[in-house]
């Protein structure tokens, strides 16, 4: 009896193993035949992979599929296959790993074109496509354009109009007025500035970068460029004073309690539920349609003031579409990128999904929700200024320094000494920049 079972077990295992090996090779032979079929069909269908961020309900698979299908209709010989990163790798890690494995998608969303461009991972964008942009000279690394910035975000202070009205506050026009408003809000037992310590980029986007920007506008608009070229360091002003202001915000209790344990979603909810009166964030909030982001008060917006006054509003326009240098279908990939800009419907839908502003020669507008409208009102008559830390080319900072700086911000909130942290940041810069 036992013998029979043993035999049965052994033969089942052997068979399954053969089957498994078989299916493995089947997969391979299927792939091979697919490939030969594909090469046969080169005149017929080419496949290009498009890596884009699927973010929740607004920018989900279906949203992008419509764009992919539309392009396919116009170019029946090109099929766009969407690639999403739903693992816990960051976009950067994903791109770098796929680059190493030779699997980098043909068209990718690019947030650090300088880094990838210098490593020859991206294709240079030819002039006829670059000229679709309002400013084709913007974002070049060493004179070459490695990415097509498709949107401009605006970063500034969203505020709760009801709270301001209740506390008899007017929109702050100087740094002093801003501090004053924050103090009054704190006295009213509300959190002046919502932020998230755990998703540390929020500390940057909603704290450090606008502060550096405001300081730069006030004292030295060239600081980002000078820092990039090592002419100035973090010890020098603009950065130092900005970091000290950040420390002051924390020490004055503007961030509320439990900051370091909160994440981005919670930070946003703090604002929309009325617990925090101000939220320094970007226009992408306008693109999200999550129910918990709908405030039940009127939202306002104002640019972060500098000491002397409101000298500009922060913009970030370095996120774009790039083409991989190792793409096997370069022409088709470039064609797709061109499509993403030329097709007004597609371009507008991309902007709208992110609540962003257009970068094309002919400006594109769409109906904005309350956040977008608040922004439009808040920036009227004010000049834009590129947010420090997100430069390309001359103003590009050392890759990886932003993550390091975010950690420093966390340290400062935990009470670390600002000067020591600045020293460490400078050391890290020298290490990263060589």
């Amino acid at each position, binding site marked *: 009896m036992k013998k029979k079972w*043993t*035999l049965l077990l052994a033969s089942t295992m052997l068979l399954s193993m053969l089957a*498994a090996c078989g*299916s493995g*090779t089947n997969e391979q032979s299927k792939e091979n035949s697919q490939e030969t079929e594909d090469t046969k069909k080169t005149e017929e269908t080419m496949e290009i992979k498009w890596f884009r961020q699927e973010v*929740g*309900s607004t920018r989900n698979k279906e949203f992008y599929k419509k764009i992919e299908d539309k392009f396919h209709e116009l170019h029946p010989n090109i099929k766009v296959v969407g690639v999403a990163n739903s693992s816990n790798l960051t976009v950067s890690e994903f791109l770098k790993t796929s680059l190493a494995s*030779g699997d980098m998608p043909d068209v990718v969303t690019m947030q650090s074109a300088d880094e990838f461009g210098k490593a020859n991972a991206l294709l240079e964008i030819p002039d006829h496509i670059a000229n679709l942009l309002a400013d084709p000279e913007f974002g070049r690394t060493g004179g070459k354009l490695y990415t097509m910035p498709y949107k401009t975000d605006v970063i500034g202070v969203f505020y709760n109009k009801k709270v301001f009205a209740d506390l008899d506050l007017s929109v702050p026009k100087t740094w002093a007025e801003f501090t004053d408003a924050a103090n009054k809000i704190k006295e009213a037992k509300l959190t002046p500035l919502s932020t998230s310590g755990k998703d540390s980029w929020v500390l940057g986007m909603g704290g450090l970068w606008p502060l550096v920007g405001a300081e730069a506008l006030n004292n030295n608009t060239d600081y980002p460029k000078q820092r990039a070229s090592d002419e100035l360091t973090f010890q020098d002003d603009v950065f130092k004073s900005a970091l000290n202001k950040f420390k002051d915000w924390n020490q004055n209790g503007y961030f509320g309690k439990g900051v370091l344990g909160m994440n981005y979603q919670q930070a946003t909810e703090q604002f929309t539920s009325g617990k925090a009166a101000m939220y320094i964030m970007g226009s992408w909030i306008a693109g999200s349609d999550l129910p918990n982001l709908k405030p039940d008060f009127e939202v306002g917006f104002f640019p972060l003031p500098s000491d002397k006054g409101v000298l500009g509003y922060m913009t970030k326009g370095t996120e774009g579409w790039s083409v991989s240098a190792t793409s096997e279908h370069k022409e088709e990939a470039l064609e797709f990128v061109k499509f993403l800009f030329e097709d007004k419907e597609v371009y507008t839908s991309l902007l709208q999904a992110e609540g962003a502003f257009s970068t094309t020669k002919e400006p594109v507008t769409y109906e904005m929700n309350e956040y977008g409208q608040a922004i439009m009102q808040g920036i009227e008559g004010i000049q834009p200024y590129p947010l420090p830390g997100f430069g390309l080319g001359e103003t590009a900072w050392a890759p990886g320094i932003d993550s390091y700086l975010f950690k420093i911000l966390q340290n400062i909130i935990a009470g670390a000494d600002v000067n020591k942290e600045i020293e460490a940041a400078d050391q890290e810069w020298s290490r990263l920049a060589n």
Partner: protein
Amino acid sequence: MVRLTWIRNYASEWIMAAIALFFAIPAYIAVTNSFKTAKETADSPYSLPSNFSFDNYIGVFQTIDMWNIFKNSVLITVTILLIMILLSSMAAYTLQRITNKWTSVVYLLFMAGMMIPPQTLYIPIVKLLKAMGLAQSFPGLFLFYIGLYMPFCIFLYTGFMKSVPRELDESAKIDGCGAFATFWRIVFPLLQPCTVTVIIFVAMWTWNDFVNPFIILGSQKGETITLAFYGFISQYNTSWNHAFAGMIVTSLPAIVLFAVMQKQFISGIASGAVKG
């Protein structure tokens, strides 16, 4: 069987209940919130759901191409199980039965693989696969897993093998069996509890793994079920109630597998890894 009567018998039940409570709290949170609406999850996360709604589960299944991805996960897991059981038990047989300088060195070599965090080897492995023409392929993923799981499986099997007496090998040989037959007919069936242990661990690790298939198979073919559910927990939109529903669906198979096979699992470890 040891009965430690100094922990009075009924006290054991109370202590166990308290321990179980601590362990069960996270499960309670996940399960109850998976049946709630988003608003209720935000407002009263710790109460029982007012209406048991399966909406989250339905939403989860609708958003994901369940069948194909499930097939993917099952295919990967089952194939790896078979390969690992075969390869590691055979190798452990050699390592345990033959004791000389070489087998000791080989054993240490196998153990060395446990000493390094696998994440630090991504770039070298990925480049290696690419050089061998195995990038973005299932065979490549399987070979990667073999390298990854081999130390642990060999560790278990060599430990357990000690409890299979060599006399059996010898008597099989006297009966005229070759090495192959000796192993498959006599030794391997006796390894069953250990095999169960290996099945539980390898199945659990492979099923839950999403980073490795994603990196090695690539984003198109590499969608396993856990990856698909992780998509819910995307950086900017955490719908807790949906996420919990997704988590439960992903975790349930492994929990059930353990619950069903636990007796064998424990006896496997008892007779082998521990006694040795």
